[in-house]
């Protein structure tokens, strides 16, 4: 098993025409993911990379029964692309594009929430590295060869650190059930807690590696969730313990910052909740070995 993506997902690509979109779409197809089409407004009816192209996500869903979408649309238009996916009935949307205006993301999340919970689209990203379920499907930009089939789940905010963890595990002979990049933007879709819930239910996942970083409180929420609900070992590395304190403007930012946003505070809460803390980003494999 795996979470969110496997061979059954019917995937469409939004914005596959650019260099990045083309490069990764090819990789995704090569990996064996069930890509059923692409959406390129104005190019509907044509083919690209041997895939049927549609003008709109609705058309694509109607014609191909697609349930999953991956977005490479450039940042000024990515918010619209996410809403289009939600409107068309896409169930899982992975937005690779990052650097999306915060107000666009506020709108996207409001829009997604305007659907009844049962129909609501699961959004991964923006600024996500995507989802990789080794041996099943790749809906992301992960270098496939890094990932070995196995039973460790990976959830990383920063994409490259997720790759790094998979690489270290692979070298140590450890495989992955599903690896997800959830992005480091100010406002993102699915967070640690929701994915921990999925992993908790996944029979094939025996342990989970979380890779957090400074900013936000989702690691703290995840720590609390682990303490109360998690039936499997979770270990977590928090990047940025030595990160410089940025220059700041005004007082408001400091005032609204909550306890748990700094790396040290996150680590403190994780430890309190019994989550194993990975001391440095070279020790993923060693830590996983101890619990497997």
């Amino acid at each position, binding site marked *: 098993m795996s979470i969110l993506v496997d061979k059954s997902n019917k995937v469409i690509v939004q914005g596959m025409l650019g260099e990045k979109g083309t490069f990764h779409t090819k990789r995704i197809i090569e990996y064996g993911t069930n890509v059923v089409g692409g959406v390129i407004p104005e190019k509907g009816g044509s083919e690209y990379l041997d895939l049927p192209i549609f003008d709109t996500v609705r058309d694509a869903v109607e014609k191909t029964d697609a349930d999953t979408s991956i977005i490479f649309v450039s940042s000024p238009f990515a918010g619209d692309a996410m809403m289009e996916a939600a409107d068309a009935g896409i169930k899982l949307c992975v937005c690779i594009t990052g650097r999306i*205006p915060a*107000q666009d993301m506020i709108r996207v999340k409001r829009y997604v929430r305007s659907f009844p919970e049962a129909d609501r689209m699961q959004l991964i990203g923006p600024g996500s590295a995507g989802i990789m379920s080794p041996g099943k499907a790749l809906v992301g930009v992960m270098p496939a*060869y890094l990932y070995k089939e196995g039973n460790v789940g990976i959830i990383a905010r920063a994409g490259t650190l997720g790759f790094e963890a998979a690489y270290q595990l692979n070298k140590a002979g450890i495989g992955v059930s599903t690896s997800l990049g959830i992005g*480091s933007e100010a406002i993102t879709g699915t967070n640690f807690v929701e994915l921990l819930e999925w992993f908790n239910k996944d029979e094939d996942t025996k342990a989970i590696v979380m890779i957090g970083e400074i900013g936000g409180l989702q690691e703290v929420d995840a720590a609390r969730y682990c303490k109360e609900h998690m039936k499997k070992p979770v270990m977590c590395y928090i990047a*940025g313990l030595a990160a*410089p304190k940025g220059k700041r*403007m005004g*007082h*408001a930012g400091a005032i609204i910052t*909550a306890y748990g946003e700094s790396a040290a505070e996150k680590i403190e809460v994780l430890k309190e909740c019994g989550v194993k803390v990975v001391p440095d980003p070279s020790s993923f494999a060693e830590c996983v070995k101890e619990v497997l």
Partner: protein
Amino acid sequence: MDIHEYQAKELLSEFGVTVPRGGLAYSPAQAVYRAKGIDSEHFLVKAQIHSGARSAAGGIITCSGEEEIRKAADELMGKCLVTRQTGPKGQVVHRIYVEEQVTVVKEYYVGFVLDRQMERVVVVASADGGMNIEDRYKEQPESLIRIVVEPAVGMQTFQARWIAFKLGIDKSLLTQTVTTLLGCYRAFRDLDATLIEINPLAVTDDDHLVALDAKMSFDDSALFRRERIANLRDNTQEDPLSRKASDRGLNYVRLEGDIGCIVNGAGLAMATLDLIDIAGGKPANFLDIGVGAQPDVVNKAVNTMLSDENVKVILVNIFAGSNRCDWVAEGLIKAIQKFNIKIPVIIRLAGTNAKTGKKILKDSEVPVILADTMREAAELAVKHVPK
């Protein structure tokens, strides 16, 4: 992106916020000229730098008469101000704002900021305006008034009224307060701001509610649709190297130590800094070349790195996902030869084509030190820092 006080005031006044009369000057003579255009006896000459807390650092001077204004402007122009917010290097003053001095009866603090936890705009306000608002908040968090804006409908009049009443602003100023707060909210929304701060928001002796200082920051990701805001950028307020790097499509952050770090991806950058710290070293900077960097980018990165005279060791930590380690290796060799680099260069390559990349480096004549893991690379870098 940050802007200056005078720019923020101009923007906010278009949204109905009252500000004192003032004019921008690039020289003492122009400062005097600006003052002559304003019918007032007393003036403030204010250093325009991207930082608050300027008053305590001597960046705001009260003046009366031409000669005092000239002297104050002369003193401030070109001065490097170190405030509580600038960091130890401070910011150099290149622009001056001359403003009428109003008589203040009472000062308030108002801030609008994007709260990423709530995914909403939050308005914070306090009846104690002034410089030490964070300290005051830590001592008495309940003294802070806080309103969350529901994004589906925007800030409402009743919320602005609530803030006005909780601040205890005189009821005769209720309409002015509501106009000011709703104006700030519209500016925040319509201009893709990430911060608006008025500190102090002051009641004057002639019963006006006036923004005596104003700060605004903007969402960098939204500048593509805010041309007017993008044009307000003042390069002189940014680190020159950081600017140079960003012109080349790189992300450069200057730090205090001696190890220069070339990495790809913000996550890997943070991890690299963490490992250097664990190994007992101090980074001079980090330079993020991005996730899918092409060969020429490496060249640019090394060039930028060499402009930083604090760098005693270069640490390259690349995890190739979309890009390729062989490209990175070739780029590094070319750059090292071209710039005739003498300082130690520690390289860790992983991911796509890592083996080929390492082989290319080994086969070349350039004197680099290869590491297998991130930890090893960090330890080697620290070891090679000249004592």
